[in-house]
């Protein structure tokens, strides 16, 4: 989403506020031009979705402030980053990397309410899709299943599995809502499924709850107690208002309970569940897990894959190292011998959660470092100069370990996508 370091162009060029705005508009238009091949006039654009007027701000005298989205976005991002790093401040927190997550989607009557556009249900589905992709991106070793609540009854939409595509397809095909919703039924059902999960897996439920009540067949407190005993962590994202029983569930099982203000806030809250949460110490006994690293089959090998029962050539699948059966996708569990099959990049991609890049310090000195430290004038990542044309230094950040300076775009890129600090990495290679 933030390509390379090259995005700094619109950032240090303009001198005045109006100039900056014009520049941004230009950028937007360029983007649209790229997308649709022609420039849309202002009246032709669809404003209904992005609600740009809500971003307008007034200053003390009632004048409109120029929208400075870039610093706004960055400030927001910094806050999140610091929050996250504060949570993991204790240096070595164990994190649950192998997660078994059931997403429970409430499709009761309340999901058809129109306070989110076009409806709560559509918004939930849209962002659930994004979440599932993001989730697998961040937790390649984890598994997801989807459960829906409708007419007071719960259905398992998809079995717990490791591939995002099948989950998303199943979700999109089943979008209609009616009846009451029942938290107890949902918890009971998911509890039944998660009970079979191996002990090293972290059992989680994420409930996207539109309704404001729950019609239960029995005593929900007993069900909560059961979940607590099975070490299932329940988190709930509400779409309307705080409900006592939801808060109670989350407090009891150690999950988080948040309420979305609007669509973008909902997305933010949902994505907060993508990175693995710290494991609760007593739950996570350190134990060894058997894993297989299957090889891609040979070109000329023809076999029947165990997942789709279809004839495939070896190059399309992987061979389980223990029982030599063909599987199509990784990560998965071998159908025959039950061995967990992963590939080494998956493990590597989970690694950064354990050793995150430290948040960078903000540097806003008007006078750049007089010692002439290398990179003091330029971003170490993209080599852009920090000096504006009117010779004012703009806001940038510095890595506390290697003291290299970075521009804001590179800051985001390093923490969100790269997960390595280029400064520290190059130091290490030069010293060794």
């Amino acid at each position, binding site marked *: 989403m933030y390509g390379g370091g090259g995005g700094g162009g619109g950032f240090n060029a303009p001198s005045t506020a109006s100039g900056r705005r014009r520049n941004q508009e230009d950028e937007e238009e360029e983007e649209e031009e790229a997308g649709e091949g022609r420039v849309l006039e202002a009246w032709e654009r669809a404003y209904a979705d992005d609600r740009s007027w809500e971003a307008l701000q007034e200053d003390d005298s009632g004048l409109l402030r120029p929208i400075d989205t870039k610093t706004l976005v960055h400030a927001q991002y910094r806050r999140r980053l610091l929050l996250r790093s504060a949570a993991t401040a204790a240096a070595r927190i164990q994190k649950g990397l192998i997660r078994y997550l059931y997403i429970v989607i409430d499709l009761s*009557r309340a999901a058809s309410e129109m306070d989110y556009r076009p409806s709560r249900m559509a918004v939930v589905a849209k962002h659930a899709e994004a979440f599932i992709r993001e989730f697998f991106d961040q937790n390649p070793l984890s598994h997801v299943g989807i459960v829906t609540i409708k007419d007071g009854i719960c259905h398992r939409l998809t079995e717990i599995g490791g591939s995002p595509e099948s989950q998303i397809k199943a979700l999109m095909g089943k979008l209609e809502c009616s009846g009451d919703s029942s938290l107890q039924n949902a918890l009971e059902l998911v509890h039944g499924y998660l009970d079979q999960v191996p002990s090293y897996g972290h059992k989680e439920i994420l409930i996207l709850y539109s309704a*404001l*009540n729950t019609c239960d067949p029995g005593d929900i407190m007993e069900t909560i107690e059961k979940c607590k005993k099975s070490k299932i962590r329940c988190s709930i994202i509400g779409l309307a208002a*705080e*409900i006592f*029983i939801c808060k109670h569930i989350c407090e009891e099982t150690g999950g988080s309970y948040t309420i979305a*203000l609007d669509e973008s806030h909902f997305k933010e809250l949902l994505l907060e569940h993508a990175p693995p949460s710290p494991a609760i110490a007593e739950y996570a006994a350190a134990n060894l897990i058997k894993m297989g690293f299957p090889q891609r089959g040979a070109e000329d090998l023809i076999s029947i894959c165990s997942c789709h029962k279809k004839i495939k050539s070896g190059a399309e699948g992987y061979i389980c190292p223990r029982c030599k059966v063909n599987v199509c996708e990784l990560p998965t569990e071998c159908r025959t011998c039950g061995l967990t099959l992963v590939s080494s990049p998956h493990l590597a991609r989970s690694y950064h959660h354990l050793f995150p890049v430290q948040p960078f310090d903000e540097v806003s000195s008007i006078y750049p470092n007089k010692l002439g430290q290398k990179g003091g004038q330029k971003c170490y990542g993209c080599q852009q100069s920090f000096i504006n044309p009117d010779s004012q230094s703009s806001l940038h950040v510095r890595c506390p370990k290697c003291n290299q300076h970075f521009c804001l775009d590179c800051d985001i890129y390093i923490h969100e996508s790269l997960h390595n600090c280029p400064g520290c990495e190059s130091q290490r290679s030069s010293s060794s």
Partner: protein
Amino acid sequence: MPISWSTATSTCSTPRWPASCPGRCRRSVSSCSTRHTTSITSALRLSVSASASRRWKALNETCGASRKRLIGRFKATDANRLRAEYNRLVDGLAQRGNLPISDAWLANPALPDDILKEAVPGNIRRAEHFLAVLRRLVRFLDGRLETETVENEMPVSFVASIHSQAGIDQKMLRFCYDRLHSLMLTLEITDTDEFMHIQTICDFATLIGTYTRGFSIITEPYDERMPDIRDPVIQLSCHDASLAIQPVFDRFQTVVITSGTLSPIDLYPRLLNFNPVISRSFTMSLTRDCICPMVLTRGSDQLPVSTKFDMRSDPGVVRNYGRLLLEMSSAVPDGIVCFFVSYSYMDGIVNSWNEMGILQDIMQHKLVFIETPDVVETTLALDNYRKACDCGRGAIFFSVARGKVAEGIDFDRHYGRLVIMFGVPFQYTLSRILLARLEYLRETFQIKEGDFLTFDALRQAAQCVGRVIRSKADYGMMIFADKRYSRHDKRSKLPGWILSHLHDAHLNLSTDMALHIAREFLRRMAQPYDKMGSGGNKTLLTEEDLQNMAQDAMEM
């Protein structure tokens, strides 16, 4: 030694007794003098209206007879004990060993000191004589109940007629309560339930014997709701709240009265008859805007809503109120509390909602519980209401302003996220008691009827809506659903802590606007916040902060 005598510590609390006005006077007296005025009015009304007067009489006679037997028995076995009691009564009530003088005000705040020091008059010292006096009194009251017209008497004339017809003078009346109490103690009677009625009579006698002003005795042969059925009631009604608080002022040097519903504050000194040294109205210090009062004047069809007499039975208004509740029940989680102006209005509107099918729609979202005049039933309903809120089903409680629930039950946290006040809870203005009280207030304190009625209604409304918020960490919405609330003369009588959160934009809302505001508010309140408050709006003080503040004050 200054003793601060405060009913509650926080500014948003309600008075328990002294800080009250005639609307609560009966209650307040009852809470300080155990069974006095309230028992008179309510118990008498209960026992008489539940059963015909003849049965009531029979009941009292059996009571008397059984005690007579008792006395006979005790006399045979334990003449000494009665003798000892006689001596005690000669010495005066205050010398009784089990009632130290220092605590006397607590037991008997409504009785003046001289009654405690005086000796019991000779003609009721002996148990038989006292019983005979009581029988005569009961017969007299029975005769009064035979009347066909509504009578309103002052205690003086009532006592005079007792004296002439039953031969009981004021002094004997005055000692009835204590004499009976002493007799019961002497005879070591444990099943006090059986003697409840005769106790009521004695309380009544003592009060009319003690006070010559501030009370009136109203005899009504028929219930106003059912004018065909004979149902006589004698009521003793207290008009003057200052009587109840007078012992507190006499006893303590420093008295602090705090309450969340003392508004307008200048009316209270007049009602309680004292000169305040300091009177101050504080706003609430909150970490965030956790209360959201709204005035709803129009329904979803933009027509005005009100419980004014000429509008309350209009089906349009009833439907608008129903729609309001339905919309709110779909947008507000957990508990909702609704207050209506009276039981009869609540019965009517719930019936209409049922016929219109609105009630069924509401029940899809939440369970509905209703307060009834029956205490046991109401307690059960409240219990189940709480359960429904706890387990996430959601519930609505229908209640009546001035009822038991409005006075004493808290709907904090999820038990009450929204309270809707349907209408302005004016008192029933045709009630004899109210008319007598208004007349008394006008003559004694120069308070206009209209002023008092509005003040009383708004105080009740504030009392009702204040049920939902009991702490800073809590949050709740309040809807005043009546177009009359938007008028300045009504609104300005609400307490400051409500007014300070009542934005101008929330003064004239219709149902859909209120719904939108409610949704926004609930979302905002559900966000995590800094409980301690940071920087300027620190609202939870530690001991350290207090010491710093004290130091600052010293330096200044």
